[in-house]
């Protein structure tokens, strides 16, 4: 895939004038990443798509109204909107137990398409392990891997120093590694279920 930031200024200018083609291109470049970020936290396709649509609707309105001027930070802005929307969804889910009971946000995701070096069971263990991370650590991992942002961009999104985020990312990976290696018993179904439920409560998923 080409660099999404290539020709971004022209695309944003055209989209701000209401150019449908430019807007489609922007959605093509970023919708998958925004959706992945939302799905990682919510673990539900429909909720994640709802968040993605809402994020792009917000961006469209602001872009069309001239409330965004391109200064090379579009991705950071987009993912800040996305992260805020994810947090809102999580907060609402925490406040309304019936949503949790409906398991809309905590249902197991559909099995991903075949991954040659990373089977679906391993993927599922990784998802479960991520759900056990602290919110702050998890956000860095998700923005980094699902959002595809650089650490500089993550620093802009979360308004924290790059060094702090690098350290947090390193710590989060070590924790995940330990969990997956069995230092933390991720194979214990009871513990995992509790973790998933906690994740559902704490993250709205």
């Amino acid at each position, binding site marked *: 895939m080409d660099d999404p930031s290539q020709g971004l200024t022209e695309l944003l200018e055209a989209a701000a*004038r209401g150019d449908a083609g430019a807007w489609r291109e922007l*959605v093509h470049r970023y919708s998958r990443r925004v959706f992945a970020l939302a799905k990682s936290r919510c673990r539900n396709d429909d909720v994640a798509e709802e968040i993605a649509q809402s994020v792009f609707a917000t961006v469209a309105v602001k872009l*069309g109204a001239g409330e965004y001027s391109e200064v090379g930070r579009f991705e950071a802005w987009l993912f800040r909107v996305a992260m805020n929307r994810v947090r809102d969804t999580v907060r609402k889910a925490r406040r309304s137990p019936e949503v949790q009971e409906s398991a809309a946000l905590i249902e197991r995701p559909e099995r991903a398409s075949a991954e040659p070096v990373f089977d679906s069971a391993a993927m599922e263990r990784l998802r479960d392990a991520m759900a056990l991370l602290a919110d702050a650590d998890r956000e860095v991992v998700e923005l980094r891997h699902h959002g595809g942002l650089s650490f500089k961009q993550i620093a802009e999104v979360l308004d924290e120093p790059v060094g702090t985020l690098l350290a947090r990312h390193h710590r989060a990976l070590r924790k995940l590694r330990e969990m997956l290696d069995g230092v933390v018993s991720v194979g214990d179904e009871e513990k995992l279920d509790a973790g998933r439920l906690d994740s559902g409560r704490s993250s709205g998923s």
Partner: protein
Amino acid sequence: MKNERRETMNGEALSHLTAPGLKALSGQLDALARADGEREGLEGRVVSASLPMLEASVQVARPTLRLADQPLWWRAPLRVAAGVAIVATAGLTWMAMRLPQVSTNLKHQVAAKANTTTTLVADDWAASAMLLEEHSGAGLDELLSTATTLEEKLRTFESSDVLEEGAM
């Protein structure tokens, strides 16, 4: 591949993680992200949901004059009429703002002319007074010299009379 950039970016950013286990884990997270990003027809639905909002937002940001339920050709004369009205209003406003300025200029010009006339008259008076002064000075000098001559004549006359009276 669609997510090449993500892999490249991670490769750069995770260079501080030297442990092979963490590198492998990073790769697994990328694979998980790719799997999470898969959703049939996602782009189309996102565009359908957001494009009308973009167009509406652009329309609101740039309002146009139009009448509801009127065909497109009807809008052109309205735009022309609106343009003429705006130009006429601007012109009248400009004139109205300019009139006091013109009036003030006229007043200044009249006052300047009056000042010039007054100066000229004053100059005439000064010249006249100077001439008069010069002439009167000359007259007085002449008169004074005449008086002196007269006094001398009288004195001469008186002395001759005395001589004549003594002789008689």
